[in-house]
């Protein structure tokens, strides 16, 4: 296991390297940040000075080597746009992102799994059909549509919840967290709901599919034969057997919410990292993109590691190491 973990870490390092390479060369192909950022009236001399000051006058591979050398010392570069070290710039945004991602994923689980169980247990009942129908609407409506609709209903018409921004924050470890205040929660609710909608549908449908798969198995019949309460049969025997795809997908969704919840973030003016990365991509702000993607890669590697470990906890038959 330890060996396995170490191997995973080494692999992660390799991906990081690969990722930075791809980003370096990919961005180079897309365009030149100077063209994007430079003032419309800049002279050639000013341009040249800027290019030199950003180190963009060097050949690409030297730029890459410089980056690697600095990265090894923990310096991921200075944002072109913000003129700040990229790492703190991103870290600043992460609390908001984490809050949103946790809230959205939490909502998805809390709503999706019970509804999915219901729909799976009584596939032919009217409410099951309602749930399944509703879930389709949940994921086929574009996110921005739903976001705006939520704002129109809950903020503009009813005035219950604030429409944008993050609520009051409390500072912990130098970062502002809003989940500790009531105001923070009020602000969090709508964007989280907006993001959760697709996930609810996904979780719900997966749960249902799993239940339909497991329900006819002999061991469920055996549990029934032992007079186990239906609640337990469903909540434990059935659920635990359907959890593997759910865990996979929830992990994936959680990761991508942290990384790329741009639409929701911009509609609700949520100061998260997703908007930052998109802005940075639009400006080809390489240090930020690279630093951000490095964080995201680590995040995904970690999530997937957790998911893999969860697989083993959920199903003892899963073997992760052995080859065929």
């Amino acid at each position, binding site marked *: *296991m*330890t060996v396995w*973990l170490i191997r995973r870490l080494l692999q992660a390092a390799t991906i990081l390297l690969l990722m930075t390479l791809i980003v370096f060369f990919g961005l180079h192909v897309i365009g030149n940040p100077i063209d994007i950022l430079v003032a419309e009236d800049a002279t050639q001399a000013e341009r040249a000075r800027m290019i030199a000051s950003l180190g963009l006058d060097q050949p690409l591979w030297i730029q890459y080597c410089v980056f690697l050398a600095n990265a090894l010392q923990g310096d991921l570069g200075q944002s072109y746009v913000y003129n700040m070290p990229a790492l703190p710039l991103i870290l600043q945004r992460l609390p908001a992102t984490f809050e949103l991602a946790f809230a959205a994923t939490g909502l998805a689980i809390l709503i999706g799994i019970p509804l999915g169980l219901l729909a799976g247990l009584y596939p032919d009942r009217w409410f099951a059909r309602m749930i399944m129908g509703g879930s389709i609407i949940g994921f086929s409506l574009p996110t921005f549509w739903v976001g705006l609709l939520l704002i129109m209903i809950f903020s503009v018409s009813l005035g219950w919840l604030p429409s944008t921004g993050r609520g009051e924050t409390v500072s912990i470890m130098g970062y502002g967290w809003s989940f500790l205040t009531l105001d923070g929660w009020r602000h969090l609710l709508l964007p989280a709901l907006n993001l959760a909608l697709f996930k609810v549908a996904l979780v719900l449908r997966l749960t249902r599919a799993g239940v339909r798969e497991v329900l*006819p198995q*002999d061991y469920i019949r055996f549990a029934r034969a032992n007079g186990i309460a239906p609640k337990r049969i469903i909540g434990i025997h059935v659920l635990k057997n359907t959890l593997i795809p759910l865990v996979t997908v929830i992990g994936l969704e959680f990761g991508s919410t942290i990384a790329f919840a741009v639409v929701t973030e911009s509609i609700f003016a949520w100061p998260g990292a997703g908007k930052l990365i998109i802005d940075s991509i639009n400006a080809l702000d390489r240090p930020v993109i690279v630093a951000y993607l490095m964080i995201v890669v680590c995040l995904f590697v970690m999530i997937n590691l957790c998911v893999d*470990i969860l697989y*083993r906890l959920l199903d003892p038959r899963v073997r992760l190491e052995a080859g065929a």
Partner: protein
Amino acid sequence: MSTNPSVATRNAQEAPLLSLDKAVKRFARKPDLVERLVQRAGLAKPFPVVHAVDGVDIELRSGEVVGLVGESGCGKSTLGRMLASIIPPTSGDLRYRGQAFSALTDKQRRRARLDTQMIFQNPYASLNPRARVNEIVGEAAKVHGLCSHAELDDYVSDQLDRAGLDPAYRFRYPHQFSGGQRARIGIARALAVQPRTLVCDEAVAALDVSIQAQIINLFMQLRETLGLTYLFISHDLGVVEHLSDRVVVMYLGRVVEQADVEELFSRPNHPYSQALLAEMPRISTGKKRFSAIRGEIPSPLDPPSGCHFHPRCPYAHERCQREAPALKPIASGHLSACHLNDTA
């Protein structure tokens, strides 16, 4: 088979068709990180290692039927799976016609593996729940070119028919069958690739006696006509007695006795074999009182020292606790692992 003793003797000189030398199979769960930390801290005991098979030599000679009996959990299935090269032994060599498996060319190894088929103990679990019976039975035959696409349907029907299953059922899914029917699907599947060796793990346990008879007759007939070799794992001593040439008795991962069938059934040497035969149910018309096991049942997780059987053995003495008895010949073709033979 006793009516055909020449088969066994003739092949005695040749290398056995399939053999395992000093096979050991251990199942140990690797602790994960948290568990390891807990163990390091002394809060939990390390995970037990299961010695499912503990240094077993077994050989199947061509055309022979070897019965394998033993306590449940003593490693019979594990041994069978190693022979069918489904799982690799932790240590020890699998040999095919005297050659180590690892020394075979790829093609030979494939051939050898295809030649050795297994009928699984859990018929249902070993059937793909999403395949229809005709796919389950016919797929391998088609892939290995044992019959053409056009003949496939007939071929499958024949196999099912032979295993005593109505071919009309061949478009059904496994869950639509009764336990015995599923077992027969497994038998048909194994036979459909025309193997030379069959590892039958409780192949007939789930069948009613008349179908059991039919299957056993089929096995015998195949042996007669095609010279198949069998490892016949069973708890049904009656069946084993009827069908085997040689019987191997296992107890807790080790072979305790091995002899020709008549010898063993008439003169069991090892106390465990004797207990088995004593408990062998005979058809009677009166009600019978069954008796509980005397002594403590040892566990493969924590096998007793010395002779594994000593906690249950009525003749156990001090040496049995210390020293594991070796499997020694006590008569021609009769091996037994018991200290009593030394003292006697």
